[in-house]
């Protein structure tokens, strides 16, 4: 009668003040991932208070937000970015924390490398000073983003003060249509429940459509749980999960592997478990999604049009839509397929894994980006993803089609390095946030799947990828 979330919660409970569901609990943290932007202040305070990390081997660090995606051997140009990356290096060296440095083949976006290394395992609590930590929930673990003060708290105590969330199950049943991916499920869910729909909840994704997703797809989905307001998203452990983990560097081996697998097999919601809220979607009805506004809930399908605020009764909502359309420079009722693009970005912790790159490459193979596209970027999620893609010849397909093939990092997902949109530029992006200025001040972001981004690159405007002869 327990949900997966209940099981994970109970397993990690160190202390509670009372049995009251609303009281603060002390949760033990198994894996602490760290990056350069949200950790420096935590390390500084830790030192000032004369404290040391509680368990150094629970920590894995990597610089991803600020690192350049070209000319890496010349180092980081921007002195402020460089200082942040150097500070991470120094802190890790001083405290003996494992870090994949910028020139390490294993370096990449923190949410890509954790699973890739097997550092994210089922049944763990995983935290990181980054909201997209929800990604790791794909492995049947409890994973969520924390703020800098909490990073310090976990460093110092290996625990976190937390309140139990309510539970929500999102069931997607059936078979996805041609060209419809985990990204489209994620956007369709957010379109349905809204960006605050999951606030206060931990979401479990279930149903036959979810079970047939690869681990990459499940990660894409859980990654976007935070965009639905839920701190944590998760998927139960099954053969796909265990298959993925087997043989990864940080994964258990031999005897321990068998013991671990036996435990992992229990990580699913019991058949009679009750959720505070349940939502069901029919996979066959989900169409490729494109956002038109400045929040991921402002989304429609590739066959749709930009909505008209005049049809919205709620005054605050209408006002938000008007503001979004003004920022996006879009007119109500414009068909999505007629929206012309300036730039294409394939990357981010949502969609930069090998499967994402394969899907995009399939679309652009033997084709070329439209002459109106000023820049099309592919930024692999990690050095190892990049290496694998190159082994498969995907880099050549991208480059022949007019894409730039870059070094791994967050890149134009949030434009903290040099990859960004200029004012007024419009981008089809595989990232997770279309907030104002996210990809560069005045830049306009439309969120889509990798295959949809690749198709848009070819046509210069949005187009239904299922018409591209994909498998």
């Amino acid at each position, binding site marked *: 009668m327990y949900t997966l979330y209940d099981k994970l919660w109970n397993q990690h409970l160190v202390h509670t003040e009372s049995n009251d569901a609303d009281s603060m609990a002390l949760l033990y943290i198994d894996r602490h991932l760290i990056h350069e932007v949200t950790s420096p202040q935590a390390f500084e305070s830790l030192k000032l208070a004369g404290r040391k990390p509680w368990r150094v081997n629970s920590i894995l660090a990597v610089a991803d937000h600020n690192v350049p995606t070209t000319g890496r051997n010349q180092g980081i140009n921007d002195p402020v*970015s460089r200082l942040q990356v150097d500070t991470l290096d120094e802190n890790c060296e001083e405290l003996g924390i494992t870090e994949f440095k910028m020139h390490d083949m294993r370096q990449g976006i923190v949410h890509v490398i954790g699973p890739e290394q097997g550092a994210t395992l089922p049944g763990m609590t995983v935290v990181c000073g980054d909201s997209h930590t929800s990604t790791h929930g794909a492995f049947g673990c409890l994973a969520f983003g924390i*703020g800098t003060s909490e990073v310090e708290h976990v460093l110092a105590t290996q625990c976190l003060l937390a309140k139990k969330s309510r539970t929500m199950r999102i069931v997607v049943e059936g078979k996805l249509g041609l060209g419809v991916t985990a990204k489209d499920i994620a956007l369709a869910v957010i379109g349905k429940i809204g*960006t605050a729909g999951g*606030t206060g909840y931990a979401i479990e994704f279930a149903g036959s459509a979810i079970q047939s997703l690869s681990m990459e797809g499940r990660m894409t989905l859980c990654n976007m749980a935070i965009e639905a307001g839920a701190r944590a998203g998760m998927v139960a452990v099954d053969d796909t999960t265990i298959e993925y983990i087997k043989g990864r560097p940080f994964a258990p081996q031999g005897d321990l592997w068998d013991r671990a697998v036996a435990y992992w097999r229990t990580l699913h919601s019991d058949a009679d478990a009750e959720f505070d809220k349940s939502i069901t979607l029919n996979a066959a009805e989900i169409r490729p999604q494109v956002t038109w506004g400045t929040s991921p809930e402002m989304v429609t399908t590739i066959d749709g049009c930009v909505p008209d605020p005049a049809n919205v009764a709620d005054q*605050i909502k209408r006002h938000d839509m008007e503001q979004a359309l003004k920022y996006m420079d879009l007119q109500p009722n414009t068909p999505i397929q007629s929206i012309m693009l300036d730039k294409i970005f394939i990357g981010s912790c949502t969609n930069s894994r090998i499967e994402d790159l394969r899907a995009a490459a399939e679309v652009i193979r033997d084709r070329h980006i439209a002459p109106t596209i000023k820049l099309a970027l592919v930024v692999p999620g990690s050095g190892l993803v990049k290496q694998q893609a190159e082994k498969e010849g995907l880099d050549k397909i991208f480059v022949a089609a007019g894409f730039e093939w870059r070094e791994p990092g967050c890149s134009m997902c949030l434009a*903290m390095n040099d990859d960004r949109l200029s004012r007024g530029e419009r981008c089809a992006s595989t990232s997770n946030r279309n907030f104002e200025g996210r990809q560069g*001040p005045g830049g306009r972001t439309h969120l889509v799947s990798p295959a949809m981004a690749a198709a848009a690159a070819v046509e210069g405007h949005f187009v239904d990828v299922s018409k591209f002869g994909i498998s």
Partner: protein
Amino acid sequence: MEKFQTFTGVVAPLDRANVDTDAIIPKQFLKSIKRTGFGQNLFDEWRYLDHGEPGMDVSQRQLNPDFILNLPRYQSASILLARDNFGCGSSREHAPWALQDYGFKVIIAPSFADIFFNNCFKIGLLPIVLEVKFLDQLFREVNQTEGYALTVNLQDQVLIKSTGEHIPFTVDTFRKHCLLNGLDDIGLTLQHAEKIKAYEQKRREQQPWLFV
């Protein structure tokens, strides 16, 4: 952390839903390795007409005369009224740091994003959840009255209007205790160090693969 004391402050209205942390403090300012100095870049994209970068002298920049916080009547505001899902988006604690550094002590909204809500308490900024009907009324009154102020009494969990009218609010007991006493919650957690060690030992036996 400073103790949270009862105070009376000017209220500023930000009548937008889904105000995200990228809007509260744009990412170019996250490159700092400090906790302070973010206030001058709070809402940077909305507040200034030019594009801001770290290290710029903000006194030389052109303010957006239409942005609400730039109106003279809200200059000394320490209480912010907001709408649904305030603080959504990234986990950056720089957002509450920026609000606090600017001078805000309290944010009032019908709902907050979870991580942002948590982060506020950690630094002594108080997020208050109020029902929409109370907020609508506050928005109306603030717009109508220049210099509109509220008294925030955390001990008794009430907002007090200048007319004497009380609006009660709820707050988690533990968090209230920490705010009122300015407590460092790492210190509090470390009081349970023995329990943490015992737990760890048990897990080490049951799931040794987590500790290699």
